[in-house]
């Protein structure tokens, strides 16, 4: 009896703080266990990764921005807490709404979707200048790409 009580108390203690938390933060990638929720590939290259923090506290990670957007577009928007992409340097998570996207078919990404993300416009322009390929597109344009028909 005692144990059930403790257990239910613990459950309550765990559940309650979960509610009403509206600040979504990205979590780190665990290379040993994280796989893309869409294509099942292991996540080995951080610069192309993405993730969604779901409203219920779960996380889904993606190996390519294309996979992220496939998931993003098919989900009910109210279930999505926040969506993040890795900055091309592979260091920081950037909210999709704030990120600067660069697209070109010639950019090699894990799933060959050819879209990468930057934190600032300057970095994106520097990349385009250096690599000689790609053009900047907005998040709305990224959303509108027909990701599924890519194959």
């Amino acid at each position, binding site marked *: 009896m005692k144990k059930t009580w403790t257990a239910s108390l613990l459950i309550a203690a765990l559940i309650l703080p979960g509610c009403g938390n509206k600040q979504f933060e990205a979590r780190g990638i665990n290379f040993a266990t994280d*796989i893309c929720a869409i294509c*099942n590939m292991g996540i080995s*290259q951080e610069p192309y990764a993405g993730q969604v923090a779901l409203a219920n506290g779960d996380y889904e990670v993606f190996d390519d921005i294309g996979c992220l957007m496939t998931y993003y577009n098919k989900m009910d928007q109210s279930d999505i807490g926040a969506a993040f992409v890795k900055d091309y340097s592979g260091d920081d998570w950037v909210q999709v709404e704030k990120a600067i996207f660069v697209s070109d078919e010639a950019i090699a990404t894990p799933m060959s979707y050819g879209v990468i993300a930057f934190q600032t416009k300057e970095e994106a322009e520097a990349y385009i200048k250096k690599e000689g390929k790609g053009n900047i597109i907005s998040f709305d344009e990224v959303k509108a790409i027909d990701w599924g028909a890519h194959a």
Partner: protein
Amino acid sequence: MKIRFLFVFFLSLISFTSIAHADTLQQQIDKTPAGGTLTLFDRDYMETAVIKKPITIVGGEKTVLMSDSEKPVLTIENTQQVTLKGLRFLQSTSAVAVKKSKKITLDQLEMVQMFSGVQVYDSEQVMIKGLTLRGLDGQYASKGYGLAVYRSEQVTLQNNNVTLVQDAYYLEKTKDVIVKNNVATESRYGLHFMYADGIKAENNTLQRNVTGIMLMLAKNATLRHNTISIQWDWNSSGFTLYNAENIVAEHNIFSGNRTAILSQTLKNATIRKNVFSSNQTAIEFTASDEDNVVTDNDFVGNILNIRSDGSDSKIHHNYYDDYDGTDLDEDGMGDTKYVALQSFGQWMVREPAYQYFIESPSVVLLNRMDQQTNKVEQNQLVDDTPVIKPTSNFSERQNTIHIVSLLFGLLMLGGAIYLWRKGVRIG
């Protein structure tokens, strides 16, 4: 006169070879006429070279090629009919790159402690056989691909053995590829196909990788007679078929994998005459797979035979070792249907955290109850014609007496009986 001539001849020979011996690899290649054969010296070459003409390069017994640059040791570019044979590569970023070429043969190459092995870009009629490659230790993210082929046609990979790399065999946007008799172990993916059309993968052995065959956005593939065992990592599977079309998987043997075949948005696939033994899950269908057929397979000793998230697939004429029906009319097929559907299996597909309960006491009991209630299941994961006898032969074990365990057993048994009797008697 004669002697003098001979002397000069030998002298010139010696000086010629000694000069040639000092030649760089590139100089040696340049000196060989187009269509000629170059045999390398028994020494270490520490450089990179480019091949732009038809040529055959053969390695000597002690020839070792390496380079500390980012570039591949040998680059074959804009040419055709190049053959590399019996070369040994050591501790380099990459051994061979083939770019925009035709009729290239790589034969019996050996690579040790390499970041990556061979890259083929935009080429045709490439044959790689008898290659052995051993990569680096450490995280998959810090390694390269073993044999990687991009945008090429008519590629054959045969009798190769690759271990300790990220993806052993990687094929992207390829057409008409044959992958035969290869071995891939201890890597992330054994065979990794992306955007490929026309694949034949036969008689390959894939062991202890994260995933045996990763087939993504591919169509028209035949995967046959492969042996896929012990893909046992956190997210492992024997085959992962993602967004694939017209796939035939037959006569494969899956044993000891986490999930033998994991499929997602799979269309028009036939899975037949395979043996699934001792896998955690034999087949998993997710995300509206269409027109897939599972037939004439043997399911033995798997924890879960088939699970799905509700996707439609046809299952018939398989053998299941946990089928408990009878065959009174002796037509070789069970009289009642086999229901593979398990509530717990379905939950596990949807929510990975349920995995903890896999085959736990409570779940076993649940499955028992399930089997009773699910007898009425009509549509999902039902085999109307389960086969009574397996098609393959499992009785290949030898029976030898194990002396040590017999002795220990008898000792324990005797001890226990003695203690018991003594315990009862005192007092």
